[in-house]
């Protein structure tokens, strides 16, 4: 028998659903084991609709014709990476937080001189997440720019933008001068940083260590889980509302030497606290 206390504490299912909608997807998934009321509330479309991005129907229809019996199922589907916009972008929701991330394909970026077949080569790659990647044959002017709207991302979130790339065995000219990376949101300021395009081999690493002692830090591409490398272009915050354009860029135009041998898969925009991605 329930005490008066217990009876009073029992909230109707609609109230529980409302409460869960203010928590996270992770909490809502685990609510299925709390009690029968929480379980039913946690399965309801009301809650999962709140966790879905506002344009979810467009996103889903552009990638699959599968029909869904519940919003929860739809949410789960969006947690797997889906190709959207004619295969030019990848969209994903992080399952536990509900935060959105994107990968823009190389085709979606502006790569200066990439239409010139003597400078850049476009081809299908078995290790790419898209249908094509761009490989640099030779250029003295390396300029890669990507754009995204903050309205497409999760509000009130810290995001980082990362250039997904690889260095081929026959690369050259990447070591001499660091590239510049920057991000600009709306009419805000550029925040410029530098990064080298390739990692030092062992012999050169020994020499670099000596320089580190004198406080010089050399930023390099970092390894990812999927076998590619990434260079952080910068970070930015999305506001609670509004829709501004974010411009993300990597340029190496100050060194006059010719460079070649990098492969670009795209730019990933993902929440900053997350270390892993698709």
């Amino acid at each position: 028998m329930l005490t008066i206390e217990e009876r009073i504490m029992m909230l109707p299912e609609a109230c529980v659903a409302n409460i869960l909608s203010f928590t996270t997807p992770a909490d809502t998934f685990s609510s299925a084991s709390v009690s029968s009321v929480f379980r039913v509330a946690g399965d309801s479309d009301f809650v999962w609709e709140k966790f879905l991005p506002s344009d979810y129907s467009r996103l889903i229809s552009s990638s699959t014709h599968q029909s869904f019996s519940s919003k929860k199922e739809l949410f789960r589907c969006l947690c797997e990476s889906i190709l959207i916009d004619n295969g030019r972008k990848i969209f994903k929701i992080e399952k536990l937080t509900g935060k959105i991330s994107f990968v823009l394909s190389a085709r979606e970026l502006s790569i200066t001189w990439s239409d010139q077949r003597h400078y850049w080569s476009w081809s299908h790659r078995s290790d790419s997440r898209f249908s094509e990647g761009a490989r640099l044959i030779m250029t003295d002017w390396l300029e890669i720019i990507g754009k995204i709207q903050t309205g497409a991302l999760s509000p009130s979130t810290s995001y980082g933008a990362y250039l997904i790339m690889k260095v081929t065995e026959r690369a050259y000219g990447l070591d001499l001068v660091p590239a510049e990376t920057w991000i600009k949101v709306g009419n805000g300021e550029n925040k410029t940083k530098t990064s080298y395009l390739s990692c030092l081999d062992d012999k050169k690493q020994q020499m670099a260590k000596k320089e580190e002692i004198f406080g010089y830090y050399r930023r390099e591409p970092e390894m990812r889980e999927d076998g590619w490398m990434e260079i952080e272009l910068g970070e930015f915050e999305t506001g609670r509302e509004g829709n501004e354009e974010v411009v993300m860029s990597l340029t190496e135009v100050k060194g006059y030497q010719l460079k070649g041998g990098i492969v670009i898969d795209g730019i990933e925009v993902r929440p900053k606290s997350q270390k892993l991605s698709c």
Partner: protein
Amino acid sequence: MSESDLDIMKPETMKSYIYLQTADGSVQQVEQEVAMFCPMICQEVIHNGAGSSKNHAISLPQRVNTAMFSLILDYCRFHQVPGRSNKERKIYDEKFMRMETKRLCELTSAADSLQLKPLVDLTSRALARIIEGKSPEEIRDIFHLPDDLTEEEKLEPLKNTMDDPRIRLLNRLYAKKRKELKERERLKNVEVEEHVDERSVDDLLSFINGRGVEDTGCRMRDLSSLEDEIFTPNAGCEDDEIDPAMKEMLDREVEDFARRLNSNWVQSLGQERRPVHFSINGNGTTRRHIGQPSGHN
């Protein structure tokens, strides 16, 4: 400011009151503009003409007891004043929310029955902050919830609302394992080439979670075709002849497995998945390679 002060300030206007009756029977007299802030009361007054006198008092829903009613009135009294700034309102709200969890629940319930959405959302957000990150046991403790789910139901989240092919696969693997064990017992003395599935729970777990297929949207479909590959068509698998102790042990393994699958399901993004590659032997049983797909050997 007391009501008599208000009367002195505006002697000409007849102050209107609404009469409301709480669940315990007592009738209260509330200023009209304060009471009308609650949609439910507003509806009663406008559509049913109720609340104009003591005899025609509006009966409040069961969930609104006297204590909660007084809190709600305080809230309405503050917010119905039009001149306040957003900042003022926010500060008031934050102070107002400082109460113990039990009262927050009662208040949510009461405000919900009066359809006072701003207050419902306010209390719900406070309760959401309390729930976030807590385990099911902790949440039951806080809200005095009965532990009314069966063990099966607690594992059931894995089944999704639809048939989760991973669970289907798991069940079939276990049925197969049970059958093989049965066979082995029967043919103890006969030397037969055994194709017993020796895989442990851990192996099965990584098998189920392993993605040996390309990263497109078609995982579920591939897994079910994989399932069909593995199981040659058989008449139904009966396992009632199994030793009950064995059966119980297997059932516990399934449960343990499912629990782990569930926690993997919820937290799994961080784990590295090794592709698990299968090939089918000539006699229809399967072989499993860990790591590189066979093309790379």
